[in-house]
């Protein structure tokens, strides 16, 4: 069974969704990701969905859920690289991903995460 790889970079986890998401894959990702956050004490999760062209309400909910789970584990989620069509679909579905940070590309997403970690590390 295929899995979505989770990469660790400094205190962050990187997830790149490059295949069409189906339900079981999404559940697997949630399991893996929460486990990795705990194992690596990650402070942030960056989800790159720049190659995702089709979303449905399930995927939208899944991203929201991942963000909520990560927040419980004290890691911030940034979703980067959303396609215009995907953004429009999500808005039309009424899913505006409240509580999820977004950025245009990986660079800006990492900048957001670093900024947060930096501000928290100050005494």
């Amino acid at each position, binding site marked *: 069974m295929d899995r979505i790889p989770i990469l660790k970079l400094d205190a962050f986890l990187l997830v790149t969704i490059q295949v069409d998401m189906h339900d079981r894959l999404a559940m697997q990702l949630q399991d893996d990701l929460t486990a990795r956050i705990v194992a690596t004490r990650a402070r942030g999760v960056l989800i790159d969905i720049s190659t995702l062209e089709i979303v449905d309400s399930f995927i939208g909910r899944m991203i929201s859920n991942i963000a909520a789970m990560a927040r419980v584990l004290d890691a911030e989620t940034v979703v980067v690289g959303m396609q*215009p069509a995907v953004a429009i679909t999500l808005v039309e579905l009424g899913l505006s991903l409240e509580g999820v940070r977004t950025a245009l590309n990986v660079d800006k997403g990492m900048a957001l995460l670093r900024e947060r970690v930096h501000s928290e590390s100050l005494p």
Partner: protein
Amino acid sequence: MASAQALQHVLMKYPKELLADWVQLQLSAGTARTDLMREGELREQSREFLTLVAQAAATGDTENVTGTVWAPVREFLAGISRSRALQGFTPTETATFVFSLKQPLFTRLRAEQSRDAEALAASLWEATVLLDKLGLLTAEMYQKNREEVISRQQQELLELSTPVVKLWDSILALPLIGTLDSERTQVVMESLLQKIVETGAAIAIIDITGVPTVDTLVAQHLLKTVAAARLMGADCIISGIRPQIAQTIVHLGVNLSEVTTKATLADAFLIALRRTQARLPGATAS
């Protein structure tokens, strides 16, 4: 007397009488639309048309209205159908201008050829064919002019649509002009998001100075656009909110509290500059 000659003869011999009868008829028929056009103008157009038709018919060629002989008549008809299309005449009213010449013309022909029924029938037929052709030509030109008006308006509307302007490094502005309906919102949203991807903008300023009214639907469309831009990782600022619109928004109970709003584009630009500078080290805003 041959039929073509009878027609020419009548046109040459009784221009004043024909004109008087014709104008009288047009005015009484109710298709003259004196609300759109003065009587003097109508009289002048009728006189010119009669003169041109008489000149063209004098050559003896009344069959072929697409020929060079009839070119001045065609030009004249093109001119009046254009002006009438713009003045707001209906196609019927415009074509009736030509068709209404039949009655006075036939009356004259009958008076001329009262003794020869056969010749009268022939000349009446000829006059009918000629005027029908000219009338149809007028209707056709009217139609063409209307289509031109429509296509020009479409062009203008298209130009009025939605430019996305790059104001500064990673700052976009979207000046909205005209009413926002669902269809237009879709176009606005798509072009804004596309431009965000192209330019890597961090902030988009939506300026609604040119939006005449904001109701709940328009507000919802705006909020959707803001939400979609946020999903792409760009912040939106709504600017150009006029005092009346601010009041309307509050009275309607629209919640804009999650969006940064500014009264003018200048204020929005200022805050956008500050934000990008704070967020992107290396960007310089003087």
